[in-house]
Structure formats: C-alpha cells, structure tokens
C-alpha cells in the first residue's frame, strides 16, 4: 500500500509519535533544521499558553486547554516504542454538565464531583479540578519551531512547565519507518520516548524518573 503523504495542517490517519524532553537537544535541532524541506510559514514559529490536566489515576488520556477549548487525546497503542494517540473529545467553555459527566471526568478516571450547575466556565471547571487530590492543573507555555524531515512532522520546542524550562523534540508520522529513520538521522535512536504527560508528571514530582538529559 502506498504511504500517505503527510501535509502540515491536514487531517491524516492516526499518527505515531516520538517525543522526548530534556535540556540539551542542540545537535538534533540543528540536524532537523538542515534536513527539513521547506515548511509553511505558519509553522515556522508558534507560541501558545496551555493548561494540561494530569491525573494520578491514569496515563491513558491527555487533556489540555488552549484558547478556551478543551482537547482530550487517548493513548491507542505503542509500536516499537512509538506512541499512537487519537482524539477522544473536543469541547469549548462554558462546558455543559453532560459533557463533564459523560466525557471529561470519565477520562480523568476519578470520582465524579457533584455537578450542581448546567454549564461551567473554565474558571469553575479548574476550581473543581484543583479541589480533587488526584488531579492537577499545570501551566504550559510552548514556543515551537516546525520542520518536516523524511516526510515526518518535526518540531523543536522550548517549553515552560509551571515556569521551568525544558526542551522537547518530536517526529510524527503515519509511517513508523520514517520516524525511525528520522530518529537515526537526529542521533536520538536510543533516547527514551517521553510524552507530554510523562514529562509533566516527572517535573511536578509525581514520578521520580529523570528526563532524557
């Protein structure tokens, strides 16, 4: 079967992803920038402020809020150390009680709080989250630089997790072999795949494993 050509910004079949976090990926970032084909100007450099919600009870669902919209992705499978995540739900604030009951809190896998209102603003929702001992909101600021190497979408990002700086690199594609080739080209083949949830949990002290460097 012919492989699907990835185009930045277009919806494709579910992608696999390699991502890692640490302090020093200067060499990989340099190689990425040199090997990249030209990419659309809109992905050259992007900045965003996001809130991630992490749950002590699971690593399966990744919840983030950006521009007043909530986005939950769910882990599908891991193949050769590469991870596949699918969109689970998207919602917008104010958000209805039904969506919180049926989609959001089940994704957190924690006890449902008493929901006494028909809709909830972002502020009210975050208050509920922070009142739950098994959940925590985390401030994330991203400065992302986009590339395309070996037909995989790549980025180098400066990320502030609750104000503290880490660097992340990634390569994603529907084609596993293209990601592996990219990892080899970037000299990161042996580096641990660390997704956002894992990186955040390590930095906020929920998991005492180190980052990649």
């Amino acid at each position, binding site marked *: 079967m012919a492989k699907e050509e990835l185009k930045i910004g277009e919806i494709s079949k579910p992608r696999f992803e390699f991502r890692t*976090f640490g302090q020093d990926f200067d060499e990989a970032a340099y190689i990425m920038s040199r090997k990249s084909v030209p990419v659309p100007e809109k992905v050259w450099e992007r900045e965003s402020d996001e809130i991630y919600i992490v749950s002590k009870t699971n690593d399966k669902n990744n919840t983030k809020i950006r521009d007043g919209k909530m986005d939950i992705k769910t882990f599908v499978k891991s193949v050769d150390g590469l991870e596949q995540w699918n969109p689970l739900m998207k919602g917008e604030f104010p958000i209805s009680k039904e969506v919180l009951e049926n989609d959001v809190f089940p994704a957190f896998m924690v006890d449902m709080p008493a929901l006494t209102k028909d809709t909830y603003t972002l502020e009210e929702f975050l208050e509920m989250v922070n009142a739950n001992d098994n959940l925590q909101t985390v401030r994330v600021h991203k400065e992302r630089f986009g590339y395309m190497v070996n037909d995989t979408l790549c980025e180098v990002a400066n990320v502030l997790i609750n*104000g*503290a700086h*880490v660097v992340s690199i990634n390569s994603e594609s529907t084609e596993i072999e293209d990601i592996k080739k990219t990892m080899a080209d970037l000299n990161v083949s042996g580096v641990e795949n660390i997704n956002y949830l894992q990186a955040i949990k*390590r930095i906020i002290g929920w998991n005492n494993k*180190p980052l990649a460097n």
Partner: protein
Amino acid sequence: MTHTTPRYEFRIFGIETINHFIELLEKNGNVGKVRNISEIYLMTSGNNENNIKIRNKLLDIKTLVRQENGLEQWNPAEVGTFPLAKEKIKNEIFPALGVECPALDRNVYTLKQFMIELILVDPDIKVALTEKERHAYTFEDCICEWANVQVNGAMVRTLAIESENPDLVYNAIAKLNIGENIENVNYPKELKRILGLKIDYDINKFF
C-alpha cells in the same frame, strides 16, 4: 542542631527575565567560586515556613524568622547526617513538613530507607530533585549568587542577595536596578509553583 546568624535575603527566579540583573552582577561584583550541588527538597502544600533539604546526606531545615519590608530572614539549622535516628525524624523532620509522621519501624534510617519508606510513599509530600550550578559573588558588601537550577529536570535561573544587614541588601537591590515591583521569591515558594503545590496564575491568557 547547630546555628549560624540569620541573614536577610532577597531572591528572584526567572528564565530570560532576570538575565539583565545577572549581567550587572557579573560586571560589577567580585567573582567567587562556581559550585555544582545536588540537593533534595521535601515539599508539602501546607508548609511555608520551613525550607527542608538534603545535601550530601545532611538534612537541614531553614526556618523563616521574619519577613520585613520585602526581605526575609531565615534561620538555618542542621538536623543531622543520615543515617538518622527515628526520634529526629519523628520530632524534627515531620513536624517541619507539617504532615503526620507514619509508624517508624526502624530505630535508624539511611537516606535511601528514609526516602523510599517514608517520603516517596506519602501522598502529601512531594520531592524536588535539584541540580544547582551556583556562581558566587560579593557585591556592595553582600553575599550574592546567581544559579542555574534544574528542578526535576526543568531549568530556572535565580539571583540572590544576602546580608546580616538589611540596609546593605536594599542598597544592592537598587544597584542591580531590581525594581520594587519584583517579588522576593524564596526556594520553597518557587519549588511549590513548579510542582503545582501553589496555583497562582492568571487564567485569562488561556481563553
């Protein structure tokens, strides 16, 4: 416990936002040693007055003595070097953490036993593993430093000014052009922000 004279301290944290002040310190201060230090901070949400850390198996607790006109005075006290007797753990460390002390099965705890059996299993205690690259200076008769600090692998930068005389600290702050609106942030406060034990961010930029 051993005691030394408490100093008044002013400290700030940031990434690029404090580089200008560091450059002024490097330009005008007398350079001292560079030290690389690994420390374990023990953090709880309710504790704001005790700075509890372990360096080279030595556990010390700095206690906030007073906050005065934007400065803080901390009293450092060494609890002891691991292995530590359970009485020290029960009577000094857990009260400082502000959480209930679990049943202590051993008479003496090594650092590893203390961390694995008492700290990492306690949901009310969070650990910040820090790697500091500390650059010491003297400036305007104050002890100063700037440092790159990795907190559980994520980096922040800090600058501190200390003296037993608060007026000398105020003078150094002014000479480094640190404005009055810049908050004095001690280590526990910054670590709590990074660990998410203190939620104090502006929500509006997420809309």
